[in-house]
C-alpha cells in the first residue's frame, strides 16, 4: 500500500543523534524536593491561581483555572503542600519570571478523585470544556490548547486528521518511544479526536528513520480494527515535523500563514497530545506528566516520564551529565530554547532537555557578510528569501522585511544551519518580529490615547458650552426676577440676586477669586516642589511624613507642609 506523498521545499538533513536515547525504555523519575508549576504554560490567557500557600493539594487537582476564551487549566503534578504562589524563573530565554505554584511533595503521590467521561455520549461543547479543564495542550512544542482545535470546520466534518509522529528534530525521541511503548493507548486518543472532528481519514506521519515506531503503530491499528487510519512513513528531512510541512507532505495542502488548517479540511495533532487525550478521557487523568528526552552531553541519554514542574537539573542528574556542561536547551538543537538556569522546571512544552557543552555545540564562527549565495532560500521550508529578510532586519527596515513575508517564517533554523557566512539569520528574524509586535502595541496605544484625548477635548468643550448656557439662562432668569422684584420687594431681591447681581461686577469678582485661588495653589505646589532636588530617599521620607500627618489630622484642614530643610 503506497501512498502518494508530496514534497515540501527546502529542508536540511542534520545528524539525527537519535539512537542513544532509544536503547532503553521510558523510565520514571523519583519525586523531586520541590515542584515549580508555572500557571501560564500554554498559548492564551494566564490561568488564575486556585490555591494559596499552605494549601494541601492532591495529584491531578486543579491549581490554575482557565481564564478567557483561549486558556488551559494547570494541575498539581503530585500530592503535597503549596509552599508559595509567587513569580519564579520560567523556562524561557528571557530569564523572566512568571507566577508559579510551588509544591512540596508529600511523597504519597496520591491522586485526586478522577472523573471519567464517555466521549461518545457527551455533547461536543462539554467535551471541550472537559479537555480544557484537564489541561490538555499540544505537546509537540507549540502548547496550543487542544480543545480549541478539536472543532470541525464550517462544514461540520474534516477531511483529514493528521497525527504528527515525525519528530524531525535531532536528539529528540520522546514521540518515538511513546509510539513504540504506548501505541495502543495513543490510538484510543486518536479515535476520540477523530470522533470529535468527524474526520474521514487519519494519517499518522512518522519519519522513516523510526521503523520500530511505524511497526508498533501499524500493529496497533491492525489490532484495533479501525478503518481509515493509516501510519505513513515519510522521508526523513528536517523540518518534516513542522505541522504545515507534515500536512503538505501527507496531503499536498499548503496552509498559508494566518489561516486555519480546518478551512482546508485538515487538522494536525502531536502523538503525545493524542496520548494525553486518551489519559484524560479514558482514565480521567489531567495532564500532569509528559515524556521528556534527556540527551546531549550526558552519559546515558534516555526518555523519562516526568511530572510537570520537576526542575530540569533533577531530571538531568538521572542521565549523568558530563562535567563540561554549560547549558540546558529545551527542545532540539535546531529550534530549542536556551534555558536561563539549570533549575528551571519542566513544563508541558518540554519535549527534550538537551544538555549542551562548548564541545557539543561550539559557538558559531565569526559572522561574515552575506554573499547572497541563496543557500538559505534553497533550505527554507516556507519558500522565503531569508537573505532579503536578513538584509532588511539588519537595517531595521521592518516594513520591507514584512513585505518579504517575515511572519511566514517558522523559525525552524534551516537558514542559519546552511549559511556559509555563519549569520544567525533566525536571531535577526526573531528580533524583527518582536520589534514589529512592540511597534504595533505602541501604535495601538497611541491610537487609543489619541481617541481618548480627542474625546476629552470634545467633552470639555461640551461641558463649557453647557455651563455657559446654564449661566446665561440663570443670568437671564435673575435679571427677569430682579426686574420683576424691583417693584415688589427690593430687599428680597437684593438677597436673592447677590451672587449673580450685575453681571460685570460679579464676573470681575469671580476672576479675582480665581486668580487668588490660583496663586494659593501655586504657592502650595511650589512648597513641595523644593523637595524635588532632594535625593529619592529623602523624598520618600517626606512623603511618608506627609502621609502620617495627613492621616493624623484628617479632620483639620490640610496645610501645606513646611519645606523639609
Amino acid at each position: 500500500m503506497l501512498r502518494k506523498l508530496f514534497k515540501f521545499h527546502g529542508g536540511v538533513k542534520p545528524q539525527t543523534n537519535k539512537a542513544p536515547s532509544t536503547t532503553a525504555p521510558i523510565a520514571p523519575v523519583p519525586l523531586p524536593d520541590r515542584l515549580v508549576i508555572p500557571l501560564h504554560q500554554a498559548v492564551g490567557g494566564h490561568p488564575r491561581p486556585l490555591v494559596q500557600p499552605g494549601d494541601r493539594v492532591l495529584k491531578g487537582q486543579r491549581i490554575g483555572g482557565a481564564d478567557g476564551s483561549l486558556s488551559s487549566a494547570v494541575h498539581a503534578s503530585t500530592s503535597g503542600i503549596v509552599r508559595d504562589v509567587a513569580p519564579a524563573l520560567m523556562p524561557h530565554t528571557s530569564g523572566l519570571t512568571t507566577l508559579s505554584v510551588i509544591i512540596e511533595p508529600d511523597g504519597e503521590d496520591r491522586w485526586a478523585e478522577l472523573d471519567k467521561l464517555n466521549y461518545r455520549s457527551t455533547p461536543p461543547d462539554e467535551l471541550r470544556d472537559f479537555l480544557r479543564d484537564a489541561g490538555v495542550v499540544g505537546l509537540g512544542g507549540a502548547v496550543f490548547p487542544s480543545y480549541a482545535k478539536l472543532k470541525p470546520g464550517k462544514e461540520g466534518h474534516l477531511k483529514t486528521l493528521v497525527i504528527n509522529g515525525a519528530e524531525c528534530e535531532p536528539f529528540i525521541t520522546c514521540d518515538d518511544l511513546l509510539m513504540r511503548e504506548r501505541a495502543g493507548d495513543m490510538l484510543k486518543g486518536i479515535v476520540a479526536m477523530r470522533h470529535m472532528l468527524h474526520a474521514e481519514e487519519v494519517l499518522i506521519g512518522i519519519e522513516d528513520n523510526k521503523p520500530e515506531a511505524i511497526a508498533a503503530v501499524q500493529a496497533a491499528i491492525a489490532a484495533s480494527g479501525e478503518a481509515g487510519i493509516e501510519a505513513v512513513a515519510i522521508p526523513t528531512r528536517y523540518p518534516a515535523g513542522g505541522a504545515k510541512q507534515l500536512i503538505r507532505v501527507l496531503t499536498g495542502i499548503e496552509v498559508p500563514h494566518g489561516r486555519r488548517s480546518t478551512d482546508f479540511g485538515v487538522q494536525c495533532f502531536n502523538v503525545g497530545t493524542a496520548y494525553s487525550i486518551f489519559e484524560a478521557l479514558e482514565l480521567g487523568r489531567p495532564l500532569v506528566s509528559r515524556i521528556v528526552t534527556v540527551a546531549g552531553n550526558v552519559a546515558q541519554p534516555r526518555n523519562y516520564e516526568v511530572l510537570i514542574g520537576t526542575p530540569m537539573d533533577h531530571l538531568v542528574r538521572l542521565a549523568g551529565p558530563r562535567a563540561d556542561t554549560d547549558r540546558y536547551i529545551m527542545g532540539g538543537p535546531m529550534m530549542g530554547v536556551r534555558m536561563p538556569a539549570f533549575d528551571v522546571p519542566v513544563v508541558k512544552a518540554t519535549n527534550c532537555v538537551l544538555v549542551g557543552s562548548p564541545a557539543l555545540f561550539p559557538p558559531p564562527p565569526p559572522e561574515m557578510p552575506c554573499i547572497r549565495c541563496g543557500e538559505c532560500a534553497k533550505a527554507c521550508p516556507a519558500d522565503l528569501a531569508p537573505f532579503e529578510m536578513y538584509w532588511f532586519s539588519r537595517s531595521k527596515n521592518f516594513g520591507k522585511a514584512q513585505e518579504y513575508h517575515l511572519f511566514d517564517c517558522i523559525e525552524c533554523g534551516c537558514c542559519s544551519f546552511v549559511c556559509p557566512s555563519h549569520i544567525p539569520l533566525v536571531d535577526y528574524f526573531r528580533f524583527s518580529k518582536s520589534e514589529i509586535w512592540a511597534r504595533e502595541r505602541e501604535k495601538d496605544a497611541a491610537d487609543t490615547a489619541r481617541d481618548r484625548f480627542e474625546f476629552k477635548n470634545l467633552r470639555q468643550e461640551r461641558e463649557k458650552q453647557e455651563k455657559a448656557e446654564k449661566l446665561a439662562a440663570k443670568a437671564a432668569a435673575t435679571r427677569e426676577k430682579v426686574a420683576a422684584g424691583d417693584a415688589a420687594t427690593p430687599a428680597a431681591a437684593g438677597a436673592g440676586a447677590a451672587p449673580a447681581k450685575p453681571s460685570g461686577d460679579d464676573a470681575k469678582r469671580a476672576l479675582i477669586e480665581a486668580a487668588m485661588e490660583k496663586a494659593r495653589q501655586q504657592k502650595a505646589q511650589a512648597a513641595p516642589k523644593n523637595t524635588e532636588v532632594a535625593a529619592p530617599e529623602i523624598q520618600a521620607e517626606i512623603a511618608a511624613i506627609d502621609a502620617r500627618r495627613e492621616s493624623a489630622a484628617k479632620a483639620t484642614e490640610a496645610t501645606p507642609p513646611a519645606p523639609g530643610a
Partner: protein
Amino acid sequence: MLTALLVMASIAVVLGALLGFASIKFKVEGDPLVDQIDAILPQTQCGQCGFPGCRPYATAIAGGEAEINQCPPGGEEGIRKLADLLGREFKPLSEEHGVEKPKSVAIIDEQTCIGCTLCIQACPVDAIVGAAKQMHTIVAADCTGCELCLAPCPVDCISMQPIAETVDTWKWRYPVIEIKAAA
C-alpha cells in the same frame, strides 16, 4: 519679427488665462500632512513640546512654526521619522523641551490621595478614575506617562513607575556577534 511677437503674445494670453482659471478650479483643500505628522507623534499629549497636545504640535510643524525636535517621548526615533517625512535635517532632541525617558505609567499612592480630583482634570486621556473625596486610581492601560498629573497633585501622591518587562513585552535583542580583530 512681428509674427514672432504675436505668436508669443497669444501663447502668453492663453497660458496666463489658463493658469489663472486652473488655480481657482483645482484648489486643494485640507492638509493631509498634519495627519501624517500626527501619526508619527506618540500621542502622549504631554505638552512638553510647548503645544497643548500632539495634534496642535503636528499642525505647528506642518505650518513651519515648530521644530521637529521638541517631542521627548517620541525620542530620537520619532525625530528621525519626522525628518524623513518632511525632508528636513535630523536634529538632536532639544534639551529645553525635556529628555527621553523610559516609558512609564503614573501610580497613585492610595494611602496619601485626598481625592481632590485635580489630577483627573489634568489627565489628557481620562486615564484616572475617582470622584471628589474618593481615592483615585490610574488605569494603567490607558496612561500615556505624560506626567501632567504630577504637578497638580497637592500632596504629591503620584509617582512615575517605569513599565516592567513581561514575557509578552519581552523583545529579542539585535543579534551582535563580535568579530574579533584577531579572528
